[in-house]
């Protein structure tokens, strides 16, 4: 990772934050950049819901097997530990963590993950979630890389609280819940589009993102159109007429 590329990533993230933006789209992009910048296999953001449990809000991999690694972390796992302690968990080798996370660790090993780190998303003395990194190689992230990872987690937090606070006064728990609801809407839309366009859910997601980018629309708006107005998109992310 060159310094120049690094600077570009932060400029891109900062650029998004000053305009109206879609939280699910923004955080998906952020997890994509984490993978690029930190050279890990996949990354995901988990956020606390109104019941104090962690939910996956955005992740790089749309494959169900990897999604499961995040979703398994309801009771245990690196995100849960980072969330409850507020401390970063770094470079944990999963084969050494089988006792610590008896359900999560074997599933992660099975999926080919060798190391994981989880960085807390902190806000005014509260922890609202964690950024999770998975690596399929047995190598440690350097202290510099971890610092960048923490900066990415902080940017994700800023994104979450900024999404609407510029426009309206909102309360944090409401903000977090609405972000999770947006994510659910996007998942439903993936299913609707996949069934209509006879494709997979991962491809459906890419089509929606492409359409949103191409038309300067928020991903959530596109998802709502897919669900409510039966918008169908082709591989290029272009609308298909029935």
């Amino acid at each position: 990772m060159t310094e120049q590329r690094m600077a570009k990533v932060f400029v891109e993230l900062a650029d998004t934050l000053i305009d109206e933006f879609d939280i699910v789209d923004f955080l998906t992009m952020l997890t994509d950049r984490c993978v690029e910048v930190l050279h890990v296999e996949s990354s995901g953001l988990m956020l606390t819901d109104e019941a104090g449990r962690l939910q996956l809000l955005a992740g790089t991999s749309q494959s169900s097997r990897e999604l499961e690694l995040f979703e398994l972390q309801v009771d245990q796992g690196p995100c849960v530990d980072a969330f409850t302690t507020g401390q970063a968990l770094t470079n944990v080798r999963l084969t050494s963590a089988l006792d610590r996370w008896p359900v999560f660790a074997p599933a992660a090993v099975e999926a080919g993950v060798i190391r994981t780190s989880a960085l807390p998303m902190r806000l005014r003395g509260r922890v609202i979630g964690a950024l999770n990194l998975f690596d399929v190689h047995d190598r440690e992230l350097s202290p510099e890389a971890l610092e960048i990872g923490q900066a990415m987690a902080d940017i994700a937090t800023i994104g979450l609280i900024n999404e609407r606070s510029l426009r309206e006064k909102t309360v944090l728990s409401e903000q977090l819940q609405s972000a999770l609801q947006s994510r659910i809407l996007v998942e439903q839309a993936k299913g609707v589009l996949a069934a209509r366009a006879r494709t997979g859910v991962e491809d459906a997601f890419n089509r929606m993102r492409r359409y949103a980018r191409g038309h300067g629309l928020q991903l959530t708006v596109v998802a709502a159109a897919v669900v409510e107005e039966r918008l169908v998109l082709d591989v290029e992310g272009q609308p298909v007429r029935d």
Partner: protein
Amino acid sequence: MHDRVRRLLQELIGDGPDLPPRLVDLCSDSLPVTGVGLSWMTADDRSAGLVAASDGVAVRLDDLQFTLGEGPCVDASRSGRPVLVPDLASRDPVRGSDGRWPGFTPEALAEGVAAVFALPLRVGGIRVGVLDLYRDVPGPLPEVALADALAFAGAATSLLLHLQVADPDGGTPAPWTTSLADYRAIVHQATGIVSVTAGISLTDALVRLRALAWSQRRPVDEVSGDIVAGRLRVGPT
């Protein structure tokens, strides 16, 4: 705090027509509010009827919004976001009504309503109703109370979806206490797929998916996985 709501809700386990009134009473008693109403909303965001209310004023609040087609519940349902109005009499855009509901506001004030907190009951694109909390004195809901209220709204969402299972086959539907918040992404994806393959609404698709899993005695995740992978197709009935 959330565990507190969960414990409270556990007392409500059971079934029967008295569940909604018990839920609104419990919500009203446990939060710093005067009364609570629970309403269905239709797709065009008009109230489709009151399910339960803890007192007469809550009944009137629903009635007003149904008649006028405007008010905090209508806006909450439309936007999918909570509408929090700590001081209905104020014209302040953040705390007050800011002239948003010219018909509703004076009528609600006349009923003695000073603050309204309308929470949408939704699962992504599925909108089932609104939980409406009101108070006879102005002032915001403290953050902890709002978090509790959101937890009650989650329970109310599950309950309303449960009540929609008209139980056509006479089978026992999934218990309403299964929290929708625990559903994985794959369940929401499968809901979208079923809505297309069966030609039904997202709401009906989720209800159908839950009933299907229940009848097969399998976890909803597992059935959803089969649907997303194309191993199982749910067609029109």
